[in-house]
């Protein structure tokens, strides 16, 4: 079971001790965006999970991605939201397709810098197809992947 106590920051964060996903979050702490890859057939998969759907192998590896991609979609949430998010709303949330394989996608936020707020960018300027690159922002003991415009 996940713990029920609010975390200090008020943000919803991942449990870092789950066997299937621990390696991903260890990667972000080192500034790496990792994708899980089958140790037998080489097929990449997201989210990380125990078995390869192509060959049923349990062998898993982490492959470091370039961290480059394009915006596949985005939304701008407004309240009612959980309190910490309501305070920041309206903010953006985006989906990024990775350059290595556009079917590998990550949900994240478009920011001007790694530690910038998620409501800084005018949502009217966000465009599907925009190139972005990954940055990492520390919240408590978690390093969350976020995205900046590729030319910034």
């Amino acid at each position, binding site marked *: 079971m*996940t713990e029920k106590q609010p975390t200090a920051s008020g943000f919803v*964060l991942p*449990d870092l001790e789950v066997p299937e996903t621990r390696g991903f979050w260890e990667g972000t702490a080192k500034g790496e965006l990792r994708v899980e890859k089958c140790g037998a057939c080489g097929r990449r998969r997201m989210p990380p999970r125990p078995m390869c759907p192509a060959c049923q192998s349990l062998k898993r590896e982490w492959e470091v991605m370039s961290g480059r991609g394009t915006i596949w979609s*985005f939304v701008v949430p*407004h309240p009612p939201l959980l309190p910490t*998010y309501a305070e920041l709303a309206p903010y953006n*949330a985006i989906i990024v397709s990775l350059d290595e394989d556009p079917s590998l*996608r*990550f949900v994240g936020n478009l920011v001007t810098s790694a530690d910038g707020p998620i409501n800084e960018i005018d949502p009217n300027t966000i465009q599907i197809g925009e190139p972005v690159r990954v940055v990492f922002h520390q919240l408590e003991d978690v390093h969350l992947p976020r995205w900046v415009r590729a030319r910034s």
Partner: protein
Amino acid sequence: MTRGIRDRTAIVGMAQTKFGKGLEDSELSLACQAIAGAIADAGLRPSDVDGLASFTMEEMREVEVARNVGLGDITFFAQISYGGGAGCGVVGHAALAVAEGQCDVAVVWRARKRAARSSRVWMQTTRRLSDHYQWARPFGVIRPVDEIALLMRRYMHEYGATRDHLANVAIAFRKHANRNPHAQMYEKTLTREQYMNARWISEPLCLYDNCLETDGALAVVITSAERARDLPQVPVYIHAYAQGLPQQHQTMLNYYCDDPLTGPAWACARRLWANSDIRPHDINCAQIYDAFSPLIPLSLEGYGFCKRGEGAAYTDDGALEWPNGRLPTNTAGGGMSEAYVHGFNLVLEGVRQLRGTSTSQVEDAANCLVTSGEGVPTSALLLRR
């Protein structure tokens, strides 16, 4: 070759409590009232009931329901997961059990006290996530509406769909609710201007793209086609039923497959039509799950009423509106304007259309498609008289 449960069972009874916010009765009391009402409507006695099927999200357990309503010895009971995707599947499981002789009279129900803010599932999000929600929730994609809005923005980008198309959906269903005295929005009209000026919930979706929050309960009774012919109500035959959980699917956060805009409806529809004598162009009316307006164009495509990318434009020219639209849809108001009870009210409206008792009755309706939630593992029913 004849496949599936084709017309071997029928819905012979139905009932619902009133819909509203903050109803006084407990969820168990609401469930019992709907179930007892449906059994009486069928002309049967509670002791005739020997089968039960429900949602896994149903909090009223079979033992409580059976003891309260005075049901007989239950020899079949089953549940289906995935919230709004379950409703038609639950009816289908009960029908399968009746068709195969595992029980003779089955009751299917849904009771919900949803209107309290604290009952919103997303409000209960824990702060450390070990499941797949960890890939979305930390970034502020908190609610189901945020999840579907991400898909809709992409859909708009790919196919030129606009908010006007979504307004078509919201306005059509509201017009139907304005004719249905039991609908929560019976007395509240909705104009295009109101829609366009509504507050945002998750851009590009506004308040009117979302379903209602409802307290209420509904139930239906299913028995064999032979027995149905001796009962007082017009039998509404379950012509076909199907479920769909497509390859590499990840519920509403379905961003991790090759084509996120091809949802579970597509897989469900393939089985549904394969097991049916009826084709999409034969359908007289539809009750399509509408927790969010984008589910309508996505479902219209999935169930074969139009091609991929054409679902938004399909809603133009009043296509979903009774009486003159080409596919009168959600004729009691649906989840967006009648009541949101995990889509189970759509099943009852399908039955009313075939009994000839809808408040927006499609003339000579001989069949009705009913669907459950697109975006999660889903299900659908083809009803006929």
